[in-house]
């Protein structure tokens, strides 16, 4: 068995932050998105990652199955699990879908609360201001409608 050379940074997992397998899935997606895990790079074996993260083998296995199902990784019998060529795109698309869905429910909640469209847009501006964009993102321009 070849140990993965990959330097995988996943923080300590705590059951208080939700299902452990989901934390592994999210952590690996984060690494893929940040290009710290690039296409073709090997993930550690179940046993090695379980020992490192202090979780059961089943938990790691389940996380890997989930990542494979989503097309982020693929596995080769006897060789291990690797980041898929388009894993990065899939992760990004996945994240955009999550953001879109969060906006949809925020809009719904605002309408339910009787917030006007103008107020809602102002709320979004306030949120954007309170969470400054990273340098590679386009800053928001233009004036309020």
């Amino acid at each position, binding site marked *: *068995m070849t140990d993965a050379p990959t330097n995988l940074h996943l923080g300590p997992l705590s*059951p208080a932050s939700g299902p452990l397998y989901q934390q592994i899935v999210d952590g690996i997606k984060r690494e893929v998105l940040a290009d710290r895990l690039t296409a073709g790079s090997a993930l550690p074996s179940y046993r090695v990652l379980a020992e490192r993260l202090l979780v*059961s083998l*089943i938990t790691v296995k389940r996380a890997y199955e989930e990542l494979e199902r989503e097309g982020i990784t693929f596995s080769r019998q006897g060789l291990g699990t690797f980041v898929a060529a388009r894993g990065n795109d899939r992760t990004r698309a996945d994240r955009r879908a999550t953001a879109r869905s969060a906006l949809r429910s925020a809009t719904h909640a605002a309408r339910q609360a009787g917030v006007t469209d103008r107020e809602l847009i102002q709320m979004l501006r306030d949120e954007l201001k309170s969470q400054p964009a990273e340098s590679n993102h386009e800053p928001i321009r233009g004036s309020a409608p």
Partner: protein
Amino acid sequence: MSASAIEFQDIHKRFGLAFSLGPLTLTVPRGSIYALIGPNGAGKSTALNMLMGMGEPARGSIKVLDRDIRHDEVDIKRRTAYVSPDMDYRAWGTVGRAIDFVRGFYADWDAARCEELQFAFDVHRDVRVDALSFGGRMKLALVLALSRDAELLVLDEPTLGLDAIARRQLFTELLKFMTRDGRTILISSHQLADLERFADHAAIVNQGKLLTSGRMDKLVERYRQFDARVLRDTPLGVPGVSVIDRQGDRVRLLVDGDVVSASPLEMPQIEVLAQVPFTLEELFLALITSANGRSGWWPHMSAA
């Protein structure tokens, strides 16, 4: 080599009138950490002792690493390491003498590993065994068991007396043990939060019988608990649904997803208010409460 490390096949054993074990059928898959969970006196230690040749079942068979316990006890013990709270090393005086004595028995003893383990568990050779705390003796037993390159670890309540740091160290070492191919651990413990995190499979036993077993994550997902309001005071009597608590017109229900597939739960007697997620500990409490009570019926509660 078969896919299972341990097979209990329809075993029975009776101890007077008060306690009997079985019928019990249980398979521990090779390559897994398997948790044996149950209240005090459920029969966990009795079952584990049988694996190590202490007590034979009156009926049924037990296979360990593909060998029959009746015929191949020596071979099984050569390949299996065992820890229980009853182990007593006081006769050897110091920790160092106990280690030196035990290592002579085993061809698979790893001296370098033993050094690492002594450091990890903070066990010192020159300390007298009878001066150790209960937890300290447990750590010594763990060092002795884990210093071997065994195929199977049988651990009977190894967390007893250990503080949170030592417990974490224990599970770290168990996961390290599992990085070697084809290793299996059967562990009984009351530290259910630890088992939920570190064990791959679990079996819950009560009064000598198996209540449920399966992959840890599937087990916790298979059962659901609901908080509901009682609309009509007629008994439930629905298979797969049992009442685990009642206060006034509020009940908490345990639902076995393998029996009741409807989600959300729909019954004329109740209005479901919320589904409450399970931890292994809560599932354990619910299953034992349900097994020892009148499952499926409104329990008769005295007025609060």
